[in-house]
């Protein structure tokens, strides 16, 4: 019986993949196998979720060496009779996905936002054209590699019946030497992780409003983000705060959008927010059509008012 194999270097993401694998396996006769590489704790955690877990412990194998990692996964996939490999679509996972797919002669889809099963086919939903459209795609080759976006699935619950097995692989390191691992420098704001975002658009005309907007964000427990021109033309913020096609794709619980007209290049970065508020001088702004709550008002007056009333 063909198997689904899941792997991520991040345990939380591996547990999300396990939920995805359960959706795919349901009624389709797949078995689910999980892999951990040089990570005993992860193997134990996967087994605690009821997974048939295989662990590779091999000092020759480094996460940094994508060629060797792909070779390890290829060998595991062969030994375990795997038809479908699920990886996490974080950076490591995406880099690995293409290489593994080429190695096992598989079609591959990355950044998959959701999956539905249709007549045994795995239909994957992902953004294309820079997010202007959302495509449903499926892989037609026998072997498949699918990289699933973080947070697309909930993490799997505890379940009995898990096991831990050894899996030996024969690895030739590709000659990538890790000299140093270091924390990220600079403005380390992560607007993708924020639960609430206050987004500054070009409708916020004066830079004098920014301290007030920061105060609003602080009171709400929010991060401040912006549309692209506010960072690249006005230089009010660094590029790490840009929402949209050329910035970050965010899914906050609440997005308060101040003075953004709402072109697709922006909205792709915020349309998955749970609740969207648009405050805009312009009642015809497209942003208002994709908001849950709309306040048409003069931003110059509303921003100071807002900070006083939260």
């Amino acid at each position, binding site marked *: 019986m063909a198997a689904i194999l899941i792997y991520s270097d991040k345990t939380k993401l591996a547990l999300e993949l396990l939920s995805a694998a359960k959706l795919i396996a349901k009624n389709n006769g797949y078995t689910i196998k999980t892999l951990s590489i040089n990570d005993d704790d992860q193997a134990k955690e996967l087994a605690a979720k009821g997974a048939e877990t295989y662990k590779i412990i091999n000092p020759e194998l480094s996460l940094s060496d994508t*060629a060797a990692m792909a070779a390890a996964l290829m060998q595991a996939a062969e030994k375990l009779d795997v038809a479908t490999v699920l990886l996490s679509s974080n950076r490591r996972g995406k880099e690995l*996905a*293409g290489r593994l797919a080429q190695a096992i002669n598989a079609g591959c889809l990355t950044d998959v936002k959701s999956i539905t099963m249709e007549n045994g086919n795995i239909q994957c939903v992902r*953004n294309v054209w820079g997010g202007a459209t*959302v495509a449903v795609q499926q892989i037609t080759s026998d072997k498949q590699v699918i990289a699933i976006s973080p947070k697309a699935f909930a993490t799997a619950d505890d379940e009995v019946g898990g096991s831990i097995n050894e899996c030996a692989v024969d690895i030739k390191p590709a000659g990538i030497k890790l000299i140093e691992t270091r924390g990220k420098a600079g403005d380390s704001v992560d607007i993708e992780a924020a639960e609430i975002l206050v987004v500054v658009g070009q409708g916020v005309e004066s830079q004098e409003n920014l301290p007030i907007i920061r105060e609003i964000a602080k009171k709400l427990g929010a991060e401040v983000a912006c549309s692209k021109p506010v960072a690249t033309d006005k230089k009010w913020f660094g590029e790490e705060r840009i929402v949209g096609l050329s910035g970050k794709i965010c899914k906050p619980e609440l997005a308060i959008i101040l003075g953004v007209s709402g072109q697709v290049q922006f909205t792709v970065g915020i349309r998955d927010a749970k609740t969207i*508020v648009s405050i805009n001088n312009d009642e015809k702004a497209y942003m208002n059509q994709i908001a*849950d*709550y709309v306040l048409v008002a003069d931003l110059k007056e509303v921003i100071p008012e807002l900070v006083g009333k939260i």
Partner: protein
Amino acid sequence: MNIVVAMKQIPDLQQIRIRNRKPVLDDVALTFGNIDKNALEAGVQLKEATGSNLIVVSVGSEALEDTIKEALAAGADEAYMVLNDETKEMDSSNSARLIGEAIGKIDDVGIILFGEGSGDSYSGQVGSRVAQILGLPQVGYAKSIIINGNSAIVTRSLEDCEEVLEADLPIVVSVMADINEPRIPSVSQILKAGRKPKEIMDLDAAGDSVLETLSNLAPEMQRKQIEVETIEKLLKVLDNEGLLRR
């Protein structure tokens, strides 16, 4: 040493409009993806630092002969082009096969550069697939590349940390958008671009796609669109939804 940059010809995303939920691609200019332009700039900087020759390799439609001039103006010395079969969907495995075959015909390749994702599909597979085809080591998501003689120091930027890696050449590297700011070519560079050597490679572009696209539509956004008149009312509804008590 030859430095190779692989670039994908795509429609200018800023010009794509949506009609009846479908993307309208007619009359949209063709260009290269933004991150591909960062890969090209990284190649130009490495070429200048090492005195190498910079070759751009691209797969695209017949208009590629025009699009490729952008890369030649921005600093590539020569171009190899593969024209695809426009009747078929060009998926990542086919692009990678063609780019791998094209690079296989180039001698003395030191480093092969890609953007970490194309502007249209952003699938991020082709660089990794080409590395596998050519049997080369790879580093993805590079935010800096330094070549010292026969080896390279590459900094890979992950979500939570950075890795400084050393590898012998040849190597495949995909770059992040923040690695550099692509230069704008001068008028004289644009004029010279037309005279730089470019060659159409005779490769069999007609491979079967391993992907099927079942639908591709702009998402329907169903939002409440409730107009509130005052800040007080706005804060009240948000509070009622439990969005402010944190």
